[in-house]
């Protein structure tokens, strides 16, 4: 059962919606099949197509953000450099941070989840798939808006944190900060919607038999992350809304002279901003758990401990936000509390790291590129975590806060903790996405260049910070002596760029000529490997019931199949929250263009409201119309539904 099936197995059914004519698809997959052609592509509600799109777009934004970073490193490579002026530089670093946080890190984790989670829990689609389509379009339009703005010299220039008053009505001249604030609205709507879908998918669409203690660790991380997003993201939405109101209609939320307060912004922003670090980094831990388990050829040690640490992290993450504000006159007692909290949160992460090390000690290791990236993850993240503890110590933080030391720290945590596992995940799931394996040799080059480049680029920044180099400066004088280390750092940055280029080449080449992967190239244990690569529309025909935590490893881990679900209209089995016993069937939405149209209407509303508050009024009319169109059932659909209807 664990042996990879021969290439032939991936023959006719791989990439069905590319190779087969529409009627055949419809015949085979009933209501799961997309409409043919371009319109079909625009109106798909298949979580795999949406997820793939989401991943590719988020990666594209990663590359764009990286290009901005390269430009900054170019400017900082030499002292007194005149390449880039302050005005442009401020737009560059603001857009870089905003892109990486709001358009890459969070979305790509959710995008991976949109693709993988339904498969891992044995569902035939994600909950509310039309909403997934809407979330993707909204996200895409928001990102495009940001870069259109940057090109038009309206790129936000007050930092990704947009502190007031610098981003406020008096000092944030023009419309730059408004575009930032609206980008937040776009990405948050998208992010929040996807979190709700993931939670519902994980709660209600698990395969029969997948009781809580059999949920794969990656799914657990996505569940915790989604809950964190639901409670953290509203903070930044409220904040950015208040900012726009201050700028557009003259409210006084952040105006000290009229009873507002500049620090109110920082509290709201970091109440979101700190948890955000964790909901970028937790999914990374999920990838690590998955890959470590598969390539150590044994279940990850300490399943319960890891799940509990994830949940603990989720809670603690909300108790740390003030450690971004230690320099702003926080009361002594408060400081000690937040120091303690910031140190305590290291324990759950440490626990997981120890569990993985234990797993690797006792496993039978298979060296493949994904595992390579995971080892890189350990070497980098542990260092980043330790500098994090240094930053949690208030007195030391007051020295290194807002210096390049912090730049180094956050990149060690986010690139080490999220991007390395993510690349591991790309190598690991690419065969499931496309039916073909990524090239191993290119993969190793990709890894080593990334790993070396990363450390060369970011390690020196620790020292620069200690030597007094503040963040967000567009240039520095030669006599500060910061030149040599900055030059080294820039060289490292370009090495990273090279390795990412290699990765893109690898993807482009392997997608066409890579080895046929077959169903389960890694001999992995979770359900996504129980269906074809790539999975057909509707994922499982028929759906399966599980009887173990590692369904494909354990004897009898696959209990059997589920009968009696229609494919036209497409039906799913809804199971109970705790013990995943069947509760009822549910007819699923079919492909439609309305999510796209609604997203366009919403985009008009959001962008309009940058310029006039009245856009909220007139803009809501097309939104309402498109939503009613989306909402309105057609006659034949209704009849179809009635045909299969059984009242509770």
């Amino acid at each position, binding site marked *: 059962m664990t042996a990879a099936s021969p290439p032939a197995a991936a023959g006719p059914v791989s990439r069905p919606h590319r190779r087969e004519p529409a009627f055949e698809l419809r015949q085979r997959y009933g209501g799961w099949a997309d409409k043919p052609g371009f319109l079909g592509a625009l109106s798909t509600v298949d979580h795999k197509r949406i997820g793939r799109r989401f991943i590719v777009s988020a990666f594209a934004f990663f590359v764009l953000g990286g290009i901005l970073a390269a430009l900054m490193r170019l400017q900082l490579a030499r002292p007194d450099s005149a390449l880039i002026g302050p005005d442009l530089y401020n737009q560059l670093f603001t857009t870089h941070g905003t892109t990486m946080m709001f358009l890459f890190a969070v979305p790509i984790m959710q995008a991976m989840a949109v693709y993988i989670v339904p498969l891992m829990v044995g569902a035939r689609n994600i909950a509310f798939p039309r909403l997934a389509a809407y979330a993707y379009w909204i996200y895409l339009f928001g990102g495009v808006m940001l870069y*259109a703005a940057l090109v038009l010299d309206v790129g936000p220039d007050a930092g990704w944190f947009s502190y007031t008053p610098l981003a406020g009505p008096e000092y944030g*001249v023009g419309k730059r900060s408004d575009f930032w604030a609206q980008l937040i609205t776009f990405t948050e709507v998208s992010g929040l919607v996807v979190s709700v879908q993931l939670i519902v998918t994980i709660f209600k669409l698990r395969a029969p038999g997948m009781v809580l203690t059999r949920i794969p660790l990656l799914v657990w991380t996505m569940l915790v992350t989604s809950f964190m997003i639901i409670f953290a993201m509203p903070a930044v939405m409220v904040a950015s809304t208040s900012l726009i109101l201050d700028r557009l209609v*003259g409210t006084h939320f952040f105006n000290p002279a009229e009873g507002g307060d500049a620090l109110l912004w920082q509290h709201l922003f970091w109440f979101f901003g700190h948890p955000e670090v964790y909901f970028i980094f937790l999914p990374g831990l999920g990838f690590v758990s998955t890959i470590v388990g598969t390539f150590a050829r044994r279940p990850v040690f300490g399943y319960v401990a890891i799940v509990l640490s994830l949940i603990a992290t989720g809670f603690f993450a909300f108790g740390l936000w003030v450690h971004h504000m230690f320099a702003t006159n926080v009361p002594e007692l408060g400081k000690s509390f937040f120091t303690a909290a910031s140190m305590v949160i290291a324990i759950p992460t440490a626990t997981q790291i120890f569990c993985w090390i234990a797993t690797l000690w006792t496993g039978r290791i298979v060296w493949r590129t994904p595992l390579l990236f995971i080892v890189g993850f350990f070497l980098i993240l542990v260092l980043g975590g330790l500098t994090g503890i240094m930053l949690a110590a208030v007195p030391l933080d007051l020295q290194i806060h807002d210096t390049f030391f912090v730049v180094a720290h956050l990149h060690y945590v986010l690139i080490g903790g999220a991007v390395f596992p993510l690349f591991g995940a790309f190598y690991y799931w690419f065969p499931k996405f496309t039916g073909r394996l990524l090239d191993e040799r290119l993969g190793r080059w990709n890894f080593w260049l990334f790993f070396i480049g990363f450390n060369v680029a970011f390690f020196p920044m620790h020292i620069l910070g200690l030597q007094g180099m503040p963040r967000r400066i567009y240039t520095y004088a030669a006599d500060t002596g910061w030149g040599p280390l900055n030059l080294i750092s820039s060289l490292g940055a370009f090495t990273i760029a090279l390795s990412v280029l290699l990765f893109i080449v690898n993807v482009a080449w392997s997608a066409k000529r890579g080895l046929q992967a077959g169903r389960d190239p890694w001999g992995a244990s979770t359900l996504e490997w129980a269906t074809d690569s790539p999975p057909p529309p509707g994922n499982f025909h028929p759906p399966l019931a599980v009887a173990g935590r590692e369904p494909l490893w354990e004897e009898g881990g696959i209990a059997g199949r589920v009968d009696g679900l229609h494919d036209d209209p497409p039906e799913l089995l809804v199971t109970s929250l705790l013990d995943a016993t069947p509760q009822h069937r549910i007819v699923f939405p079919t492909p439609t263009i309305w999510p796209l*149209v609604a997203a*366009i*209407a919403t985009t008009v509303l959001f962008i309009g409201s940058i310029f006039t508050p009245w856009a909220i009024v007139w803009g809501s009319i097309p939104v309402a119309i498109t939503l009613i*169109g989306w909402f309105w059932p057609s006659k034949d659909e209704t009849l179809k539904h009635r045909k299969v209807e059984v009242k509770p």
Partner: protein
Amino acid sequence: MSSTRHLRGTHEAARGAAAPGAPLRIVAVLLAVLALAACEREARRFEPPVGKAITPPPIRMSAIQPAAIDTTTTIAPHYEVNAYALSEGKRLFSWYNCNGCHANGGGDKGPALMDDTWIYGSEPSNIYATIVEGRPNGMPSFGGHIPDNELWELVAYVRSMSGLVPKSAAPSRNDDIQAKKSENRLLPEPPQSSGVPPASERSQ
């Protein structure tokens, strides 16, 4: 907020295609308009676009003197659509203590600037001349004390106080006691009297 609706809509929602063409075009047009406005509005001109030298205050008898019209048509527009120039004008308005007499444009010793009456004309060239040459009854001459580009920034800002510049470029409120509606929220006050009616001057 609205996402609630989508969520609650999805399940029932079941409906075929409706061409996205039209809305797309609308968006395209919006973006195009945005594009045109954006660049002019957002540029930060740290270097003055016109000659750095402080031009000697031109002696003008009336607003319809060629030089005036010339500068108005060539220079002033650059400033009036540029958010940075307008905000600089607002900063200088208080730095050079125009508030002392004009009280945030509300008027005090000096006339109100946020209304629709213009004793010496509402044309940029008129305002420029007023600042450079000064006027009887208390308006001092700032000629030679304020560089040319700052003069034009002040001119643009003064006009913004009557809503005579694009809303999207006009300054927003200050982080300060709320004295009046910010310039980007003012309704345009079409100038009532322009030019220089001698009568009105004597009446001052």
